């Protein structure tokens, strides 16, 4: 195989990879290019939530109110706010179930989120290994990469036997 064949094959492979990622789980996966600022500033404290999980209006409000960010002052310099904010706007959710702006702009209050998790007992969310519904990675091991399919699930520590049985329902 000469170089031009090789590079064409690589380009093709990359192209298929993009299509695959876009189709995965209704387009809610993480965009390929994540700004380092998003990882450093947002994902230091919580899951790197895929932008597609909230509509553009919700992200706009969140980025405009970082000094009152769910009980903490997460304010950033204007250039970083602009950089992260425009990336969030570009990749915000447009799929019909994400078009709804959830209460307090919380992903975990979205109707689709509540429905997806309605089999989980309230006590499970309060386990020390879980702490909060915002801690996606307690069960979704691929959360920071935007992988939320059932293949990347794990049981959080501390489930009762009954809860472990319910896991497989």
């Amino acid at each position, binding site marked *: 195989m000469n170089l031009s064949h090789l590079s064409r094959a690589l380009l093709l492979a990359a192209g298929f990879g993009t299509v695959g990622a876009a189709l995965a789980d209704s387009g809610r996966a993480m965009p390929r290019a994540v700004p380092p600022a998003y990882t450093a500033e947002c994902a*230091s*404290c*919580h*899951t790197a939530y895929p932008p597609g999980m909230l509509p553009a209006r919700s992200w706009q409000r969140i980025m405009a109110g970082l000094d009152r960010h769910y*009980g*903490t*002052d997460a304010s950033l310099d204007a250039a970083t706010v602009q950089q992260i904010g425009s990336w969030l706007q570009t990749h915000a959710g447009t799929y019909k179930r994400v078009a709804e702006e959830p209460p307090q702009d919380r992903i975990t209050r979205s109707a689709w989120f509540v429905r997806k998790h309605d089999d989980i007992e309230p006590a499970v969310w309060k386990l020390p290994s879980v*702490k909060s519904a*915002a801690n996606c990675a307690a069960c979704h091991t691929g959360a920071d990469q935007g992988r939320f399919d059932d293949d990347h699930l794990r049981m959080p520590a501390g489930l009762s036997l009954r809860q472990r049985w319910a896991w497989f329902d």
Partner: protein
Amino acid sequence: MKHRLIPSLVLGAVLAAGLTGLAQAGDTTPAQQLARWSAEAGAPGNATRGQNFFNSRHGGEWSCASCHGQPPTAEGKHANTGKAIAPLAPAFNAKAFTDTAKVDKWFRRNCKDVLARECSAAEKADVLAYLNHLK
């Protein structure tokens, strides 16, 4: 073929060097940060005072240790979200306190969470003295 390969090797080396530089940031050291805050406070940081400060709740809900652990020599866990936090003590994390902008940003942000105000230079000097002596 050879003449096309060499430039890409050079490019690769340059990129790798650039990335390494970024990953380490490295415009300061934990010792320099201790010296910086001690100078600003006009007195050397004190490790025992720093340990007390680090483990106290200061009238609020959290201490520094709530997220960073006690002692902060292993991976911590965000008290609210459960997100993993790299060890804070420099002997257990080569990247800790090696980037001035990060040091300033996280002191500002986290002091507000714990004390509902920014920390003084003397408090930062004490915390650095405590963290630097953990081995």
